[in-house]
C-alpha cells in the first residue's frame, strides 16, 4: 500500500514536471497547429543556460529561469520570423521538418559549447525530501511541481483573459477574419512563439536540477513532451497538465511494478496508442474540423 502511494506521489510530481516541460509545445500546437520538433532542444538549451548561471553566479535555477526566459523568448521570436513564418507561407508540410532540422542544429551547438558529458545543477533542495510517516516527498520534485502549476495557470490566464490571448485565439481560428479587424496573424504568431519558447525556460530549469542532461538527450525529451501534447488533445493547457500527470503516473507505476527499463517506453507507447485509437486526445471532445468547406 505504501509502495503504491509512494509510486502515485512520485508519478504525480514527475507528471507535473512533464507538463511544465511541454508548455511551449502545447501553446504552439494548440493555437497555431505547429509542431515544434525543436522543443526538446529548446528545453535542454534552457537547462544549459540555467546551469551556466548556476555554475558561474550561483543563481538558483528557478530564479535563473526568470532571466533565461528572455533569451529563450528571443530565440522563439527569431525562429518564427526566419523559419516558421516563411514555411507556413511556401510549404506548411515542411514546417515540421525544418523545426526538426533546427533541433539538430541546436543539439550540435550545445554539444560544441558544453561538450558531451552529463551535467546538472545542485541547489540546496537537491536530493532532499520531506517525510510524512513512511512516505517520501522529494523537495526538488515538489518545487518543480508547484512551478509547473504556476506556469500553467499563468499561460492559461494569458490565453483566456488578456487581449493578446483573444488576438491569439482569433488569429488561429480565422486568420483572414483576424486580419480584417486589425490583428496581423504573423505578428501574433511571433508573439506566441516568443511566449512558448520563453515558458520553456521554466521546464528547462526544473530539468536542470531533477535530471543529469547532455545535448543528445533532447530527442528523448522531445518524445516525452510530444506524448504530453498528444495525450492532452489539441493543445489545451489544462489538458496538457492532466496528460502530464497521467504520463508521470503511468511511468512511475511501470517502474514500480514492471521494470525501470521499460518505463522509458511508456511515452512512445502512449503516443502510438492514442494516435491509433483516439487521435483527438484522451482529454478532449471532438470539435468541428470541416468548417473550411
Amino acid at each position, binding site marked *: 500500500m505504501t509502495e503504491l502511494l509512494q509510486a502515485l506521489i512520485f508519478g504525480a510530481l514527475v507528471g507535473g514536471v512533464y507538463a511544465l516541460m511541454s508548455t511551449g509545445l502545447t501553446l504552439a500546437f494548440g493555437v497555431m497547429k505547429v*509542431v515544434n520538433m525543436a522543443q526538446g532542444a529548446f528545453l535542454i538549451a534552457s537547462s544549459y543556460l540555467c546551469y551556466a548561471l548556476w555554475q558561474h553566479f550561483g543563481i538558483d535555477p528557478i530564479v535563473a529561469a526568470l532571466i533565461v526566459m528572455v533569451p529563450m523568448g528571443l530565440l522563439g521570436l527569431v525562429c518564427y520570423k526566419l523559419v516558421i513564418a516563411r514555411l507556413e507561407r511556401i510549404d506548411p508540410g515542411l514546417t515540421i521538418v525544418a523545426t*526538426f532540422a533546427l533541433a539538430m542544429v541546436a543539439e550540435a551547438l550545445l554539444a560544441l559549447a558544453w561538450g558531451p558529458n552529463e551535467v546538472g545543477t545542485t541547489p540546496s533542495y537537491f536530493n532532499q525530501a520531506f517525510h510524512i510517516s513512511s512516505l517520501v516527498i522529494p523537495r526538488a520534485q515538489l518545487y518543480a511541481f508547484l512551478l509547473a502549476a504556476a506556469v500553467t495557470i499563468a499561460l492559461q490566464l494569458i490565453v483566456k483573459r488578456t487581449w493578446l490571448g483573444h488576438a491569439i485565439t482569433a488569429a488561429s481560428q480565422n486568420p483572414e477574419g483576424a486580419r480584417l479587424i486589425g490583428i496581423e496573424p504573423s505578428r501574433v504568431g511571433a508573439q506566441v512563439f516568443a511566449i512558448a519558447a520563453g515558458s520553456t525556460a521554466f521546464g528547462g530549469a526544473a530539468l536542470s536540477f531533477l535530471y543529469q542532461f547532455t545535448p543528445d538527450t533532447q530527442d528523448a525529451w522531445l518524445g516525452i513532451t510530444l506524448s504530453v501534447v498528444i495525450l492532452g488533445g489539441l493543445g489545451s493547457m489544462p489538458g496538457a497538465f492532466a496528460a502530464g500527470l497521467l504520463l508521470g503516473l503511468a511511468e512511475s507505476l511501470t517502474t514500480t511494478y514492471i521494470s525501470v527499463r521499460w518505463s522509458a517506453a511508456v511515452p512512445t507507447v502512449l503516443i502510438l496508442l492514442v494516435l491509433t485509437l483516439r487521435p483527438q486526445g484522451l482529454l478532449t471532445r471532438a470539435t468541428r474540423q*470541416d468548417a473550411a468547406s
Partner: protein
Amino acid sequence: MTSTTSFMTSPPNPAPRAAAARGDGRLAAFTRRVWIPTAVLALVAVPMVSANLYYQNMLIMTFLLAIGASGWNIMGGYAGYISLGNSAFIGLGGYTTGILAEKWSLSPFIGCLAGGLVCALAAALLSLVTRRTRGMYFVIVTFAALQLLEIVTTAWSGLTGGSQGLAMPVPTWSLAYQDWPFYYPLLALLIATVAASWWVRRSKLGLGLFAIRDDEDKAAGLGLRVALYKMIAFVLGGLFLGVAGGIYAYYTSFLNSAAVFDIVTSMLIVLCALLGGRGTLWGPVLGAFIIAPISNFTSTNLGGADAGPIRLLLFGGLLGAVALFLPRGVLPAITGRLRHPAGPARVTEGVEPPVAEPAETAARDRTHPTGAADVLVARGLGKSFGGLRAVDGVDLSVGRGRITGLIGPNGSGKTTLFNLIDGTVATREGAVTLAGRKLERAGRASRAHAGLARTYQLPRLFPSMTVLENIVIGERAFSLARLWARRTSMAEHERACAVLDELGLAAYAHESPAALSYGQRKLVELAQVLWLDPALVMLDEPAAGISPALCARLAAMVRALPPLGTGVLVVEHDFEFISDLCQDVYVMAQGGVIAHGSVAEISADPAVVDAYLGDTVVSQPTGSET
C-alpha cells in the same frame, strides 16, 4: 571513380533543348535507354576496376541511403506523408537478420529477406495510424516508433543483446572478394527500389497517391481506398530498406541499438529525398549520391570530440536550408528550367501514352433502373458541433431519375447535410440508404462505390495531375488488380477525351487544372464525378460564380442525368436555376427541413418566404451568392 558517380549525379538530359520543348517523351526515353544503363554498368564495374575499399564503402553507404530515400519518397513524396523514423527499418531489418543468424545460424543473406518482411509488417501497422489522422501526426508517430524500437531493443536484452549489442557472423568468403557480397546485393536492391518507385508512379496506385497528397478527403470521396494506398506506399518503403538493413548489418558486423536506430540516419534519408527532389523518381537517388560522399568524407576526415556535433551541424543546417530555400529540390529546379525555359510549369511529368487494354473499362455506360423507388433516403440525420445543432433530424429523399433541389439561407446546414450523407462528417444520428443499401456506417470510399458522388462549392481538382487524369481518377469499385494498372488505359483515355471534347476543353487535356477558369473547373469536377456513373449526384452550388454560358452548359449536363436513372440533389441559391431544373425542392433553415414540395408549392409557402426567399423573389432571378 568520379566519372562513374557523375553518371548518377548529372541531370538526366542536359543537352537538347529543342527536344525538351517537344515534351518529355524523348527526354524520358533518352534517359531510359542511355543514361540509366550507362550508370548501372558503371556502378557494376567499380569494384572490379578499383580495389579501393574507401570507394566501395562510400558506394555501399550511398546505396543504403538511396534505397532509404527512394523508399521514403513513395510515402513522403508521392503521398505527402513525411516520416522521420525510416531509419527504424534499417535497425529492424538488421536486428531481425542478426537474431536469426545468432539463434538459428541462418545466413544473413537469407535472414535479410525476413528482415524485409518484418519491416513491411511494421510499416503496415504504423500506416494504420493514418486512417484517422493526417500530416503532422504521422511525423510524430514515425518519430515515436523509432524511439520505441531503440528502447525495446535495449531493454529486451535476452533477444537482442541489449546495450551489449549483437555481433553478426563473420564473413566466410575469400578476402579477394573484398566487399562485393555486400556491394552487389545492395546495388541490386537499389535498382529494385527505383523500379518499384517507377512502377508506382505510372500505375493507378501512384495516381491515387498523388491525389492523396493534393486532397485526401476528395480522393476518398471519389472511391479511392486511401488507407490501403497509404499502407502499400509505406510498406514498399519499409520492405526494401528492411532488406537493405539486414545486409548492411552484416557489413558493419555489429549491431548497437543506439547507433542503428539513430534519428540522424532518418534525417539523412529525409535530407537526400528533399535535396534531390521530393516526389520525383530520380531525386532521392541523386540526393543520396550527393549526401553520402559528403557524409563519408566528414566521418573520415573529422576527428576528436567535436566531430559528431560538427557533422550534425552540417547536415541539420543543410536540411533546414533545403526546406527553407529549395523545398522542391535540385532535380525539379534543373529539369523545370530545361523543359520549360519560360512560362509556368505544366503538369506533364507523369504523362505517358496510354496503353491499349481490353479491360472492362471500355464499355462502362451503365444505366440505373428508373422507377418510382427513391435512390436516396435519409432519415433523422443529425449532427451537433459542440453546442451548435448544425443539422437537426433531417428526413430527405431523392427519387430515381429526378432532380431535387435543396435551398436555404447560408448557415442553414445544407453543406453539413451533404457532409453527413457522403460520410465526410461522421454522425451517430440517423440513417442513409442509397439504392437500397444502408450506408450510415460505411466509409467514404464505400459510399462512392455504392453510387454516391458530390461536387464542392469551390471545385476541388487535383493540381498535380492533368485535367484528363483528374477525370479518370475516380474508382467505381475496388479491385487490387486495378491498382497495378497503368494510370490511364487506352479506353479511359479515349472516353475522357470525348468527355472533354463535349465540354469544349479538349485543348486542356494535358494541362494542370490550374490553367482552367473557375467555371471550367466546375465543369471538370462535374465530369469527374460523373465518371463514377453515380446513382446519386450531389451538387453544392454548381451555378455560383460562373458565367451564364457555362451555367447553361452545366444545366444541360445535369438535365442529361435523369434519363439515365441518376438522381440529383442540388444545393443552389440561384432560385431560377433551381426552378428550371428541379421537380421538387426541400427548404432548410437552422438545421431542419421547413418545407418540401414542388417549386410552386414552396414559393407560395409563407414560412419559406419568411425564412429565405423574401416577398419579391419568385418572379425574379436572384443572381447568385456564395
